[in-house]
């Protein structure tokens, strides 16, 4: 059983894919973030059958330096992922737009199909919606000929909300 925590990230880190999709469907697309945001990932595809406490513990571990991904930056219509530290090396770039997401409702759309990315990353798409002031819930998708598959979920949170 999870306990109430003070932080948006830990609050969601033992949720399942279907639960997150239900929450996501209630969120507005909101305005695109700007600047650098801390990221935390959870609900990775394939780990959904783990008991909640175990899944929560694994995702907590993945928010330590074991996992080099620190977050994302948003600058106008472009954005990047950052490794090692929040302003660290950029890998995986995307174009930021707005379009209807997997559930048919408006999302901020992160399209990795850009020339700067290695070809493997170009099949990635991201959907983001505003969870609260300064906090976004996002889903990472894999795009192929048959459609889109959810790979994992993550939250983005501005530095001032990172309590």
């Amino acid at each position, binding site marked *: *059983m*999870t306990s*109430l925590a003070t932080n948006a990230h830990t609050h969601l880190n033992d949720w399942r894919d279907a*639960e997150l*999709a239900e*929450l996501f469907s209630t969120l*507005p697309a909101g305005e695109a973030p700007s600047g650098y945001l801390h990221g935390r990932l959870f609900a990775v595809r394939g780990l959904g059958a783990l008991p909640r406490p175990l899944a929560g513990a694994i995702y907590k571990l993945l928010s330590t330096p074991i996992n080099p991904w620190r977050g994302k930056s948003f600058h106008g219509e472009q954005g990047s992922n950052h490794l090692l530290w929040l302003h660290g090396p950029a890998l995986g770039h995307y174009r930021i737009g707005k379009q209807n997401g997997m559930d048919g409702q408006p999302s901020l759309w992160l399209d990795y199909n850009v020339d700067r990315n290695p070809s493997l990353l170009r099949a990635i798409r991201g959907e983001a919606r505003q969870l609260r002031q300064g906090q976004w819930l996002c889903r990472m998708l894999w795009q192929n000929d048959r459609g889109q598959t959810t790979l994992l979920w993550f939250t983005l949170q501005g530095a001032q909300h990172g309590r």
Partner: protein
Amino acid sequence: MAAEQHDIIVIGSGFGGATLAARLVAAGARVTLLERGPWRDTDAIRAASIAGRAPLPAGKHFFSHALRRVSASWLPGGQINLHHDGLFDLHYDRQLSMLCSSGVGGGSHVYSAMNVRPVDGYWNGHHDNVCSESLAPHYDWILKQMGSRTAASSSALIPNNIVTDSRRPVWMNVAGVRQPEMGFRFGDGSFSNNSFFGSQDNSKVTLDERLLLPLLERGLNVRDRHEVRDICQTEQGFRLVVMDHKHNRMHTLLARRVVLAAGTLNTLRLLFASRARGSLNGMPALGLGIGGNGDVPAYWACNESGRDYSLGTPCHGRFALDNDATDLTRYGLNGVDCIPMPPTLRARLKRDLVLVGMGADSADGIARWQNGKLSLQYRQQNSPVLADIYRAFDRISALSGKKVYFLRSRPITVHPFGGVRLGQNSASSVISARGEVHDIPGLFVADGSALPAAPGVPPSMTIAAWAGHVAAQLSSSSSSSQQEVA
């Protein structure tokens, strides 16, 4: 799956939540009631064929189902969750510990059924639009629902009733002491095992069977084992994160209006945690005005031979000492038969008594949220009533020659209140005369946390009366908004 949209969601089904839901449904509102605990397996609930009932803590279920959670700031994560279907929540704090319950019907399962009005004028002076006169009909309503009356006014002979107890010590005065009304079915019940561990044979009237069951047919939607984890204000109302313990699944529910009635301790937790996450904002006075209603429980090892004090209603009645206005109540260990223990120990416990002193404390405690944990600041020297009760217990020890055990420097209450108190403005209070959070329209509070001062008597009727008042406000605003639409 798309999230469900509700009109009014009520969180918690105790004296505040059950009363409010019942009155709203009676007024024609569509209400969903979320309760973290289960329906209890009592005669009435079984007869209604409610599925998924959980046992009361008795016999082999005692140790598994007695406690739901223990919380203390020094515990890792602030709490240990023992069993989703456990009956009690214990919050330990050096300055003020609290005990409350869990399950459909809330505190009515564990309370000793003393249904008492506070002193005249209790509601006056806290808000221009709330007064004792306007609350009076809501007290009448709930007392009628609970069938409350004094033991003396019932035709049944109640064992151990303090007024008729011929072996009562001479210094235990009952003349001129007002005896409490009680929510019991006097006459056809056994009374034993109808108190702290639940109403085993329905002699004690509980809210689940009395208020909620009859309304299921009229559309009241009760979701047991649904624990609200977060309340987030949105443009259209509120988004609730709810753990469904039955299916081990998290849900997102949307509601136009939300009424918090999770009990003082858990309403405070929910509001603090939601605000810390950024789901709610404002409420600068959140946590102010906490009190323990002057509770001091004591164990009186009187060991009276030939007595079985566990018989009869749990509360035997009130008494006073000579030249002392302290409000004292005597209880037997009603329910001791539910606890597995050696027979000699049980026989001994039945010969002992519990005493509770109570009175209006100064309601100046402060609850804080630190690193995801609730901590309480409560200075007992600010409430002289506690010292008066300690003195009275010392006198009883001396008068009887039998030891009265109590915790002199660790106040513990079963009647916590305040922290989300009613008042005129958001600087010193959290909710308005409508029961609505000053700076969060659509969010209402209808439980013990709303009380602006200590009732000084058992508070369940005062909480229910407040909930009745909030229901009336909600009903009138619903009908006026329906008229506007029409």
